[in-house]
């Protein structure tokens, strides 16, 4: 297969396993490109991409922007805090105004789940979902799987535990879909209050004891506690959370194997993981960041190749 089965990247649940493999193979080539002395290719010189961020972001926005520039696309940046959205403009109006400036692709982060799907039905452009509320964050899940594949050779058959705030996490949902599609076993681990009610319907193992979870897994993906999405208290205190669900060096050393530690960032050092774990050899957190650029280049390149002239 040399073409994606979709015209937009709205979520992992719309992808097939072959799509993921094609994205990974393409990302392999781009990873080589971004390690060259000159890290740029001219493929997308006639493509314009708008990055619409209706929600704060640092690394995802930088990563997308860098990926677009490495592919020689023209880039427009937009953030809602400085825009007419504050004056009451609707999403479709905002986007159509931007598209009338001849934009071919939209990368969007939005606080509402389903914003990307909604937009893809109403505007003529390729849509890449850079995170929609607590729904999906597909490029993060792709780069997480890609990093596992790079570190352990394959994703199929691996045991991955996702630890922390599953309830508010789009990273968790996209990761569960992506890992299952590739044949990995998935477990979620966290306080019961931060596990969604429908978790059983996703076909994942559920564990509330971190030590048991870590002893089971090959890879632990540590999620951030998303205080900004919490309207009520889900656990008594940050200190208690970190004692129950935080990974320390002592805990890692007490396991009878070396597991891989991942984190989508930004890290709350001392809460989900301690500094010595984040900076240890078992951590691939910075590899994830580098792979993020290659994965986003692959996604944008493959979607752009489906935009007809």
């Amino acid at each position, binding site marked *: 297969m040399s073409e994606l089965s979709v015209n937009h990247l709205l979520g992992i649940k719309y992808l097939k396993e072959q799509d993921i493999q094609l994205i990974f193979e*393409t990302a392999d080539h781009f990873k080589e490109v971004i390690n060259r*002395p000159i890290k740029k*290719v001219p*493929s997308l010189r006639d493509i314009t991409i708008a990055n619409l961020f209706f929600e704060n972001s640092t690394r995802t926005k930088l990563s997308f922007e860098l990926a677009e520039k490495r592919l020689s696309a023209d880039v427009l940046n937009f953030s809602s805090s400085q825009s007419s959205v504050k004056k009451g403009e609707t999403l479709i109006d905002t986007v159509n105004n931007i598209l009338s400036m001849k934009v071919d692709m939209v990368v969007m982060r939005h606080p509402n789940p389903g914003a990307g799907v909604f937009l893809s039905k109403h505007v003529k452009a390729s849509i890449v979902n850079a995170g929609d509320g607590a729904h999906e964050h597909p490029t993060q899940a792709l780069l997480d799987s890609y990093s596992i594949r790079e570190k352990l050779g394959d994703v199929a058959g691996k045991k991955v535990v996702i630890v922390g705030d599953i309830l508010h996490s789009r990273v968790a949902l996209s990761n569960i879909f992506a890992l299952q599609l590739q044949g990995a076993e998935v477990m979620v681990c966290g306080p019961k209050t931060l596990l969604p009610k429908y978790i059983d319907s996703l076909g994942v193992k559920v564990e509330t004891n971190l030590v048991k979870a870590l002893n089971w897994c090959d890879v632990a993906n540590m999620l951030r506690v998303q205080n900004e999405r919490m309207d009520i208290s889900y656990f008594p205190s940050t200190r208690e959370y970190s004692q129950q669900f935080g990974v320390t060096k002592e805990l890692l050393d007490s396991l009878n194997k070396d597991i891989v530690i991942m984190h989508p960032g930004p890290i709350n050092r001392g809460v989900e993981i301690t500094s010595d774990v984040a900076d240890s050899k078992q951590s691939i957190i910075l590899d994830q960041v580098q792979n993020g650029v290659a994965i986003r280049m692959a996604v944008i390149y493959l979607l*752009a*190749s489906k935009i007809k*002239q």
Partner: protein
Amino acid sequence: MSQKVLLNAKEVNIILHRLACQLIEKHNDFSNTVLIGLQPRGVFLANRIAKILREDYKIKNIQLGHLDITFFRDDFRRGEKPLEANTTTINFIVEDKNVVFIDDVLYTGRSIRAALTAIQSFGRPNEIELLTLIDRRFSRHLPIQPNYRGRQVDVINNEKVKVNWKEHDNEDSVYLIEK
């Protein structure tokens, strides 16, 4: 579809040795020269030439790389089929080096145009030359000519030149295929 043999295994072998000798004539011990096979089909020719230089002419330190030009092509989004990338393996910097591009068939010259851009990602070469096994005359879209050519052929546009390699296609041969 009919096909005609342009070169058989013996002729291919003679030509490869001649091309290797022509390279030695110009580049001596290859101390400042790098060979770059263009993906996908130029790689077989480049590997073969490098092997002859190493084994038959005892030249050590042949630097050989493979360059993929997919992301530098000028027909992205213009064809029916999506472009498929291949691996680039260049473990050296080409700054101030004499670069020899190696490809099996020179047709419109557009691949070479893309390769000229792509190689700049690895530094500024001192000079770039082109070696090709088959030079299709009268079919160029760009002002590009080979420095070393195996065989020049006159082929009309609805005909295709297919180069086969033992390691990939079970025999060394060149066919002219009428579509």
